[in-house]
């Protein structure tokens, strides 16, 4: 029988995966926006994500809320430990969030371009920072437990280590791949040709960086490989990852963009899934003493009653959310059409 703590480990994982797949593509579109010179193409890019980006970002907010409710010690320790980095992230997310509407209300091409850039930079920096944060967690954070209290010695500069930056770049490439593949479904003609190139380039960069990251992890965070190689679940997810990675360029070549998007989404889910399996039951490994001080799904969790209550809330709420999210995506399916209501 799986215990409640494990279920919540899975649910937080699902929220992170949902966020990485959905906001992942609009972060990726933002990165591509940074390099898109043609005004018309920029307008199509931003309108490709316009109606849905806000719902996508809610996965992050709900993930934060779920982490607070299920594992408050992790929420408190990591977010206060990453203080400056987190404030930097918020800075970019704030400007990204207003860029869509502010663009629409702007009248001159110049002002619109400014907000395109706010969207682009506001996507590019977070797309990098998420991986940097994950890299630091993989490596382990300098935390210890003194008299039952978690004490962290995280410094801002300590977060900017080569391994974390490598993971940051890997995540970045993953988001670019996802964003470009999303755009293949939304664009036509020469514009589509360009985003296909982005998708292929993103795929190559992601695969290369993922291999390098995996090798680096063997040295920097060997604890992540302990006891998983004989875990059947690990190999199942690994096969999914392989399938997603292999199909992506094939799908692009045969112009099956919807399937390619699915493959890329499976890839993202598998990447996060593999990491989750490697971490379990740790949430935040301690670099001071892995055995004694790591935050786990048991020592960092809420009470069983709260976990149970929250599970009921999730079981009632999330199917409805997924239902109307699918409905909205169906409404806005197909190529971008610019109307009076567009950005």
């Amino acid at each position, binding site marked *: 029988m799986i215990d409640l703590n494990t279920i919540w480990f899975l649910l937080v994982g699902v929220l992170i995966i949902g966020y990485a797949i959905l906001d992942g593509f609009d972060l990726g579109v933002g990165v591509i926006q940074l390099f898109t010179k043609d005004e018309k193409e920029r307008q199509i890019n931003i309108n490709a994500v316009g109606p*849905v980006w806000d719902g996508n970002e809610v996965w992050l907010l*709900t993930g934060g809320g779920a982490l607070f*409710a299920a594992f408050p010690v992790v929420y408190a320790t990591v977010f206060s430990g990453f203080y400056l980095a987190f404030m930097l992230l918020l800075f970019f997310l704030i400007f990204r969030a207003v860029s869509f509407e*502010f663009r629409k209300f702007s009248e001159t091409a110049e002002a619109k371009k400014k907000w395109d850039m706010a969207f682009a930079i506001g996507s590019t920096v977070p797309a990098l920072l998420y991986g940097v944060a994950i890299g630091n967690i993989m490596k382990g954070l300098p935390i210890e437990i003194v008299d039952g209290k978690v004490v962290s010695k995280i410094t801002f500069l300590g977060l900017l280590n080569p391994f974390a930056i490598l993971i940051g770049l890997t995540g970045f490439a993953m988001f670019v791949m996802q964003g470009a593949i999303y755009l293949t479904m939304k664009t036509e003609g020469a514009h589509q040709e360009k985003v296909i190139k982005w998708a292929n380039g993103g795929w190559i960069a992601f695969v290369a960086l993922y291999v390098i990251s995996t090798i680096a992890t063997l040295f920097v965070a060997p604890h992540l490989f302990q006891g998983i190689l004989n875990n059947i679940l690990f190999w199942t997810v690994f096969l999914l990852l392989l399938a997603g990675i292999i199909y992506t360029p094939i799908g692009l070549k045969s112009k099956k963009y919807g399937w390619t998007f699915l493959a890329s989404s499976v890839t993202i889910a598998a990447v996060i899934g593999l990491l989750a399996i490697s971490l379990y039951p740790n949430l935040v490994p301690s670099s001071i003493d892995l055995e004694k001080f790591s935050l786990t799904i048991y020592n960092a969790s809420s009470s069983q009653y709260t976990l149970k209550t929250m599970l009921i809330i999730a079981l009632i709420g999330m199917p409805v959310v997924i239902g109307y999210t699918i409905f*909205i995506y169906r409404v806005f399916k197909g190529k971008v059409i610019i109307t009076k209501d*567009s950005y």
Partner: protein
Amino acid sequence: MDPLLLARLQFALTVGFHFLFPPLTIGLAWMLVIIEAIGWKKKDEIYAKIGKFFGKVLGLIFAVGVATGIVMEFQFGTNWSEYSKFVGDVFGAPLAAEGVFAFFLESTFLGLYIFGRERVSKGVHWFSILMVAVGSTISAFWILVANSWQQTPAGYVIQNNRAELVDFWAAVFNPSTLPRFFHTFGASLISGSFLMTGVAAYWLIRNKHVEIAKRAINFSIIFGLIASLLELFPFGHEHAKQVAKTQPEKFAAIQGLYKTQEGAPLAIFAIPGTKPPKLHFPVEIPGLLSWLAFGDINAEIKGINEFPPDEIPPLWLTFVSYHNMVVLGLYFIFVTALAAYFIKKKTLYEKKKFLKVLLWSTPLPLIACQLGWIAAEVGRQPWIVYKLMKTRDAVSITVGAGELLFSIIMFVLIYILLLSIFLSLLFRWIKKGPEPLTGEVAQ
């Protein structure tokens, strides 16, 4: 500098700024639910144009609300980590529920409402604004559950060095949740109505879009009058009664009752002095406070002198913010009632001076919201959770004054920039006005 003070300043700043937008969103969304329904069902072109115009305004307001709201979801962890660890077992649940039941709903359907006008049927389009209104209201409910639990905690026990949830419904419907929710909801409706009134008054003053402006102002004045009346009674009255019962220190502070009295007077006006606490130039109605709070003009109400000096909130700020909120609340009733009277007399549209008053009243409900919130939150001090945890024990120990100063300066600069851009875009949109009437209804 004191990190505690800086952390409090940052929280006040970021919530205060964020709180300018959700009340407008909620109020405007509910008005649009009615307006879009009339435009759709009665094929009324004027209402359809009002809906279209203010629908765009809603999108703009919502965007800034989202942008500033992201900060709130994480700030408990970044700045109040000791608090988060101590209450996470109880306090995290409403925040997560807000995400699951509200944020997804309002954000997803807002996309459909804004972009779907030409993509989905009128019925589905109307349903989308209904879901935005419902979602933003549910959002207010859950965040006020969390806030009310800080004011009147319930449904928990203290064990394992933290507050643990034992009764979810008792925590959700703690003694102050419903009074606080209705009071805030009423304030949101007033805020939305005054925005529409202000915009329509502006058009009328300038003789622009007159047909549309008349219909808009008729609607928003009636909406605002009903909301303002409800806000005083029962919403405001019930909330005050609940505070008197559950947080007597706060009640004494906001009412300026410094000595325990039977037949306590209601201070209509006074200038509070602090050392010793005393009301200067008070205008009081004897017995009224006792009657309002407990239904008996002779009831005894505890004054500030009853409580330990280290457990009373700041007296000046609570008294001043609460009283100014009440004055504004009464003003809203007065001004909307007068406007409704002029509408009935068919003279409102000619009264340019009065229309100017309405125009300049646009931001006042938002100021009342801020004042009410200051009274509520400062009135809870020195506690972060009433009688359970002091604010000074709740702050992140790992975050230093330098880091806080950096983030405060960052937020101040961002918010000044956001506000000025937001206002300039909004003003330009209002100046531009709605699409002209064509005599036909778009299908």
